[in-house]
């Protein structure tokens, strides 16, 4: 039975710290072997999950949503109203996109997404989160010094632009709809999608023409 006993769990953590192999690769290998032996994990299913999040599920999904919103105003309105319903048409609802809010960048507002408490991220829409998103520095600083963080990504905002930081503390998830670049007014949807980077949908990049 699950104990929900924090002292017991802290004690287990201390034992694991000292008794498990030091290499993460060895720890995970042992974990998988053991779970397979216990009948709790099937290795081919693990293969399949890795394949899904390597090939099929990734930021190209979010990019196609943004490109559609850029060319289709009624879709854009639906997306901003209820992100989950809007992306359902694309088949992108899944892990951590059940309660999706899409926030729109404008000339006056720049949005930035973070999870200060762990690493919440709209996985089924953007794929695996980038390493920096999960690192201490980003989690600590995005809420306190967003403009400083943005400048480290090469994004310089005018003083009068309002920065809105979204801390993902519940099961709701956030995605940024970046601004369509100037000069991209006549581009086709498929070409527009290529301008939309992963980072632009987190808020740490601006979409630009190639």
């Amino acid at each position, binding site marked *: *039975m*699950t104990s*929900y006993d*924090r002292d017991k*769990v802290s004690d*287990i*953590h201390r034992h*694991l*710290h000292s008794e*498990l192999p030091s290499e*993460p*690769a060895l*720890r*995970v290998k*042992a*974990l*998988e072997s*053991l779970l397979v032996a*216990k*009948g*709790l*994990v*099937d290795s*081919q*299913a*693990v293969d*399949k*999950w890795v394949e*899904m*999040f*390597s090939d099929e599920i*990734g*930021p190209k999904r979010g990019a196609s949503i943004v490109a559609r919103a850029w060319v289709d105003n009624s879709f854009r309105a639906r997306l901003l109203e209820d992100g989950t319903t809007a992306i359902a048409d694309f*088949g992108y*609802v*899944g*892990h951590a*996109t*059940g*309660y999706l809010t899409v926030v729109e960048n404008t000339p006056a507002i720049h949005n930035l997404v973070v999870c*200060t*408490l762990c690493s919440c991220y709209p996985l*089924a829409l953007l794929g*695996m989160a980038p*390493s*920096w998103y999960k690192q201490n*520095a980003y989690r600590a*600083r*995005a*809420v*306190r010094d967003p403009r400083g963080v943005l400048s480290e990504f090469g994004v310089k905002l005018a003083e009068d632009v*309002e920065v*809105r*930081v*979204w*801390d993902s*503390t*519940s*099961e709701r998830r956030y995605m940024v709809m970046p601004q369509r670049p100037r000069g991209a007014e006549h581009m086709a949807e498929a070409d527009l999608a290529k301008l939309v980077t992963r980072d632009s949908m987190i808020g*740490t990049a601006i979409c630009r023409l190639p």
Partner: protein
Amino acid sequence: MDGVHDLGGIQGFGPVNPDKDERPFKATWEGRMWGINKGISGVPGWSIDWFRHVRELIEPVDYLTRPYFDQWAQTYGAMLVDSGVVTIEELATGISARPALERRPPMQASAVAAAARSIKDFSRAANAAPRFLAGDIVTTRSMGAAGHTRMPRYVRGRRGRVHACHGAFLVADESAFGREIAEPLYTVGFLATDLWPETGARNDRVFVDLWERYLE
């Protein structure tokens, strides 16, 4: 709990190093850990909030220094040991010293595509009207409880404005300990100058999702 996981606003970490490497997994073991997480059969009493709390209980130095998916391995290890499914010695060797418990087979590869399209429902029917409406000024409680919470330390005791009310959602603080209790969930906007007066960040705002019990 006042743990090192509650990183918002903590100073001293230096610049963010934007990583141009966009591969979803930087090493094979990271992908294996992700796949184990997605494919593992649940153990009675587990929830995403229990997982988060067990991760928060990792020793602070390990939490701050170990690679991300390595922390997941340690979290699963601790949850499995706590629930009596495996022993520490089994985790260290990878060899099962006891026969597997009688249970249904784990998720098969053929079931993964459908599972990737499924969502977990955290919303519940409301049994009371929300206390606050969009536009209301609220103050967050000054909570420092030992358990699990999703109210970050940096908004404690601060004034904010309700941006949206989302209806009732399972409260993470309860779910972490196996209790299903739903309460209205709000998105609350805080002026950056109310959180970090020294920054003088004009109109910038921080939005945080907060359950009703965090607010007054």
